[in-house]
C-alpha cells in the first residue's frame, strides 16, 4: 500500500520484540554451532526466551540457512510449522519480521528463524525447501505485502484478487477500506485526509 | 364393445392411477424406512405419521416456479422429463398382476394385455427412458448435468447387456416371451425361477439397481459429487417427473423381477396341496407383497451402502456381471439341451 499515508502513531510505537540473548546457564543446541560453521554470517543474533530458540537470519542468506537446517543431520528441521510476519512500522532496520517456525520430526525440537525486512525488500521463497511454505508465504504476501521471489504461485490467498492494500499492516485502517477504497483509492485518500484535518481543527 | 374397449380402458385408468399413487407413496415409504434405519422418525407433520406427506409434496412441486435456464435447449429441456416418465408408465401394459378372475359375471384378466413378445416390449421400452436422462443433461447446457448424462448413458448401456442376458436364460426356461406364459411355466414346473436360476436372479437384481440409478449405483444423480446430476437445472413439476420416473422404474423392476423369478401372482409352493387354504387370498395380493419386498430391499440398500465410483461401476458391469450372465446362459442352454 505504497500510496497510503504513513501512519503517525500517537504513543511511541514499539520497535520490535526484545529478543533477549540466552542466559549463561542455558547451553545452545548443537545445530546452532553447526549452522554458524556451515553458513558463515547466517545467524546475526541468537535469542532464547521461554524455552524457544530464535535465530535472526539476514534476508540474503535465508535460502542457504533453510537448506542447511533441513538437511544437516543434527538439525533435520523437515517440518515447516508456520511462516508469518510482524509489522513494526517505525523500526529503522526494516519494517517486517518474517518468522519461520520449524520443527524436526526426527529430533522433536523446534527453532524459529527471523528475517528483518524493509518495506520494498524482496525475500527468497523457501517453497523449494519446504513445500508447506507455499500457502503460508502467499498469506504473508497477502496480509503484509512481503514479496517472495521464486514463489511458484504468488497470488493473494485470503483476500480477493483485486483487493487494495495489505490488511495486517499496522497502518491499515481497522474499519476496513470501505467501498470507496476499492473503487477509487485516490478519492478515498483525499477524504481521509480531509477528515483528519477536520479532527485537528 | 365392452370387452374390446371399455374394460381395457378401465384397466388402463386403474393401473395408471394405482401406479402414480404407489409412486408417490414409494417416496414416503423411502423416507420413512431410511428414517427408521437412521434412528429418526421421518415425516411426521402432514397427517398422522406423515401419511399425507405425498399430497403436500405434490402441491409444493406443482406451485413451484418452473425455471428454464436461459442458455438451455428449450425444447429438449421440456421434452426430456416426459421421455423419462412415459416409458416407465407404459411398461405396465404387459405386467400381469393376476390371472383371469370372474368379476360381475365376466371373465376379466388382471393385466391390460398379454402380447407374445411381452418381455421384449419391456426391455425395449424401458431402455428408451435413458434418453430422458441423456437429453436432460445435454439440454441443460451446464457442466454437472453433462457429466451426469455421460455417466448415465455408459452405466445404462453396460448394465442393460447383463440384464438382458439373464432375461434370455429365463426365456429359455419358459420357452416364451409372454409374461403370462412365463408365470404359467413356473406353475407347471413346480418351481419359482429364483431357485432354478439363482445367479440370473442376483444379476438381474444388481442390474436393476444400476438401471434405476439407485444406490449404490446412483452415480448420475450423485448429490455429493455432481450436486444432483442430470436434474440439477430442473425445478418444479419437471423435476418431479424425473423424480417420479425413478420410482416408477423401481416399481417396474420389482414387478418384472417378481413375474420372472418369484412366480408372479402365484402363492408360495403353488403345487403343494395342503397349502391350498392360502388360496382365499386374492392372487394379486401375492404379486403386491412380492414386489413390496423388492422395493423394501431397494430402500434398505440405499440406507446401508456407500456409492460406487464410475470406473468401479464399469468394471463390475463388464468384468463381473456380463461374463457371469453369459456363463449362466451357456450352462442353462447345455442343461436344457441335455435334459430335454
Amino acid at each position, binding site marked *: 500500500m505504497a500510496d497510503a499515508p504513513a501512519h503517525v502513531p500517537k504513543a511511541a510505537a514499539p520497535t520490535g520484540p526484545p529478543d533477549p540473548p540466552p542466559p549463561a546457564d542455558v547451553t545452545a543446541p548443537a545445530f546452532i554451532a553447526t549452522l554458524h560453521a556451515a553458513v558463515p554470517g547466517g545467524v546475526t543474533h541468537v535469542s532464547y526466551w521461554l524455552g524457544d530458540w530464535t535465530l535472526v537470519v539476514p534476508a540474503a542468506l535465508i535460502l542457504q540457512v533453510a537448506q542447511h537446517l533441513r538437511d544437516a543431520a543434527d538439525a533435520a528441521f523437515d517440518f515447516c510449522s508456520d511462516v508469518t510476519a510482524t509489522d513494526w512500522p517505525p523500526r529503522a532496520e526494516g519494517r517486517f519480521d518474517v518468522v519461520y517456525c520449524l520443527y524436526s520430526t526426527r529430533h522433536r525440537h523446534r527453532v524459529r528463524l527471523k528475517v528483518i525486512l524493509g518495506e520494498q525488500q524482496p525475500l527468497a521463497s523457501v517453497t523449494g525447501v519446504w513445500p508447506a511454505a507455499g500457502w503460508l508465504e502467499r498469506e504473508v504476501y497477502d496480509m503484509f505485502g512481503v514479496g517472495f521471489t521464486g514463489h511458484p504461485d504468488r497470488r493473494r490467498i485470503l483476500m480477493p484478487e483485486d483487493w487494495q492494500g495489505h490488511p495486517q499492516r499496522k497502518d491499515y485502517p481497522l474499519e476496513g477500506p470501505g467501498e470507496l477504497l476499492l473503487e477509487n483509492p485516490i478519492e478515498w485518500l483525499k477524504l481521509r485526509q480531509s477528515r483528519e484535518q477536520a479532527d485537528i481543527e | 364393445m365392452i370387452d374390446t374397449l371399455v374394460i381395457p380402458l378401465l384397466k388402463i385408468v386403474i393401473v395408471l392411477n394405482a401406479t402414480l399413487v404407489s409412486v408417490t407413496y414409494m417416496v414416503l415409504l423411502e423416507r420413512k424406512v431410511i428414517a427408521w434405519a437412521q*434412528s429418526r422418525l421421518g415425516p411426521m407433520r402432514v397427517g398422522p405419521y406423515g401419511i399425507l406427506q405425498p399430497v403436500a409434496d405434490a402441491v409444493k412441486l406443482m406451485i413451484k416456479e418452473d425455471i428454464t435456464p436461459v442458455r438451455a435447449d428449450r425444447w429438449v429441456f421440456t421434452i426430456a422429463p416426459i421421455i423419462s416418465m412415459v416409458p416407465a408408465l407404459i411398461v405396465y401394459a404387459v405386467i400381469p398382476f393376476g390371472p383371469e378372475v370372474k368379476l360381475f359375471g365376466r371373465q376379466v384378466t388382471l393385466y391390460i394385455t398379454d402380447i407374445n413378445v411381452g418381455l421384449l416390449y419391456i426391455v425395449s421400452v424401458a431402455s428408451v427412458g435413458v434418453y430422458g436422462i441423456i437429453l436432460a443433461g445435454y439440454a441443460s447446457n451446464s457442466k454437472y448435468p453433462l457429466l451426469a448424462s455421460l455417466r448415465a448413458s455408459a452405466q445404462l448401456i453396460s448394465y442393460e447387456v447383463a440384464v438382458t442376458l439373464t432375461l434370455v436364460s429365463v426365456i429359455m426356461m419358459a420357452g416364451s416371451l409372454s409374461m403370462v406364459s412365463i408365470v404359467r411355466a413356473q406353475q407347471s414346473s413346480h418351481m419359482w425361477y429364483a431357485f432354478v436360476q439363482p445367479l440370473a436372479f442376483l444379476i438381474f437384481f444388481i442390474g436393476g439397481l444400476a438401471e434405476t440409478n439407485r444406490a449404490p449405483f446412483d452415480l448420475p444423480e450423485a448429490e455429493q459429487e455432481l450436486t444432483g446430476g442430470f436434474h440439477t437445472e430442473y425445478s418444479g413439476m419437471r423435476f418431479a417427473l424425473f423424480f417420479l420416473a425413478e420410482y416408477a422404474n423401481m416399481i417396474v423392476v420389482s414387478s418384472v423381477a417378481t413375474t420372472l423369478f418369484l412366480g408372479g401372482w402365484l402363492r408360495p409352493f403353488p403345487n403343494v396341496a395342503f397349502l391350498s387354504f392360502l388360496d382365499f387370498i386374492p392372487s394379486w395380493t401375492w404379486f403386491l407383497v412380492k414386489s413390496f419386498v423388492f422395493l423394501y430391499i431397494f430402500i434398505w440398500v440405499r440406507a446401508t451402502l456407500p456409492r460406487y465410483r*464410475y470406473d468401479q461401476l464399469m468394471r463390475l458391469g463388464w468384468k463381473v456381471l456380463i461374463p457371469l450372465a453369459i456363463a449362466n446362459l451357456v450352462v442353462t442352454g447345455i442343461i436344457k439341451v441335455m435334459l430335454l
Partner: protein
Amino acid sequence: MDTPVIHHGAMFDTNELVLNMGPQHPSTHGVLRVVLRLDGEKVVDADVVIGYLHRGIEKLSENRNWTQIILLTDRMDYVAAATNNVGYCETVEKLMSLEVPRRARYVRTILCELQRIASHCLWVGTHAMDIGAMTVFLYAFRERELILDLFEEMCGARLTYNSMRIGGLPLDIPPGWDKKVLEFCTIMATKIDEYEELLTHNRIWLERTKGIGVIDGPAAVALGLSGPPLRGSGVPRDVRKDEPYAAYDEMEFDVPIGTAGDTYDRYLVRLEEFRQSLRVIRQATEGIPEGPIVGKVPRLIKPPAGETYHAIESPKGELGYFIVSDGKSTNPYRFRVRPPSFCNLQGLRTLIKGHLVADVVALIGSLDVVLGEVDR
C-alpha cells in the same frame, strides 16, 4: 486458471473441461472452492481457492484485550471450539509464565478429548456421506449430541464454548458431571463399533478409499500435513506426546499410525483416535485432583514484551499460536494462528491429481477441513 488445452489434429477434438466445484457445493464442507481441470472425469489439475469465510480474526484480535480474544478463537474451528480456547490460553500463559493448577489442567484435557471425539464424529459422518453412505452421518451426530449436552452442562453453550480463561477455567465442573462423562465413555465405546460395522469391512467403502490420495511419510511432512493425515502416512507425530501440554504428560495413550497413507488409513487412524480419546477421558475423569481451578492471575493481563509460538494437537492437526506482546498495551501486538486445516488443505492439490471427480469429495472429506479455520 489458464485456458484449457485443445489438442488439434485428432479425429475428434477433445478439450479439457474446467469444472468449478464450490463455493456452493454439497460436499465442499462450507465455502471451499476447487477449480478442477478435467479430462473426462479424471482430474488433470486443480486450483484450491479459499478466503470466502475470511473474517479477519487475526486483525480483530490485535484490537481486543487478552481475555476478549478467547471468544474469537471459538469462531475459528467451530466444531472444536474448546481446543482453540485451550491453545490460546496456554500460549498466553506461556508468555506470562503462569502456573495453571493441576485440576484445571485435567479438566482441560477432558474437554479437549471430548472435543476431539465430537469433531471426529462430525468428520466420520460427513466423510461417509460424501462417499454416499448416509446412515453413518445420523449415527455419528446422535453421539455428538451427547457430547454437546455435556458441554452445555459444563459451560452453557453448545457450539462456541468460551470455556477457558487465562490461568485456568471460568467455572468448576458441575456436580455429577464427571459421572456423566464416564457414562458417555461407556456408550461411545459401543457406538464406534457400530460405525465400523457399516464401513470398515464394507467392500464398496474399501474400493472407494483404498489407494486413494496416497502420500508417503516424508512427502506428507514436507507438505506440512499434520494430525491424522500425517499419522495416516505413518509418521508418529502427535503434539500431545511430543510436546505435552495440559495434563497429557500424566496420561497413558497410544498414537495410532497408518501404513499406506491413503484415505482408508486416515480413516482407520481417526477411528482408533476415538478409542484413545476415550482412554484419556477415563483416566483424566477418574484421576481428577481437588484444588483451585484458576492460578495466580494478575487482575490486568499484560504479558511482558516478547514473542512465542505454542502448538497443541487439535482434532485436525497442529494448532499453533504465534503471539507477540509489546508489554505496554492490553492487547496483543501480533496474533497469528497456524490453522491445521489451512496447512492440510494445501495438500489437496497434490492428492487429487490423477484421481476422478468422485475421489475429490472423498479426499476433501479425508483431510477434515473446517473452512472457518482455513479462512479465519
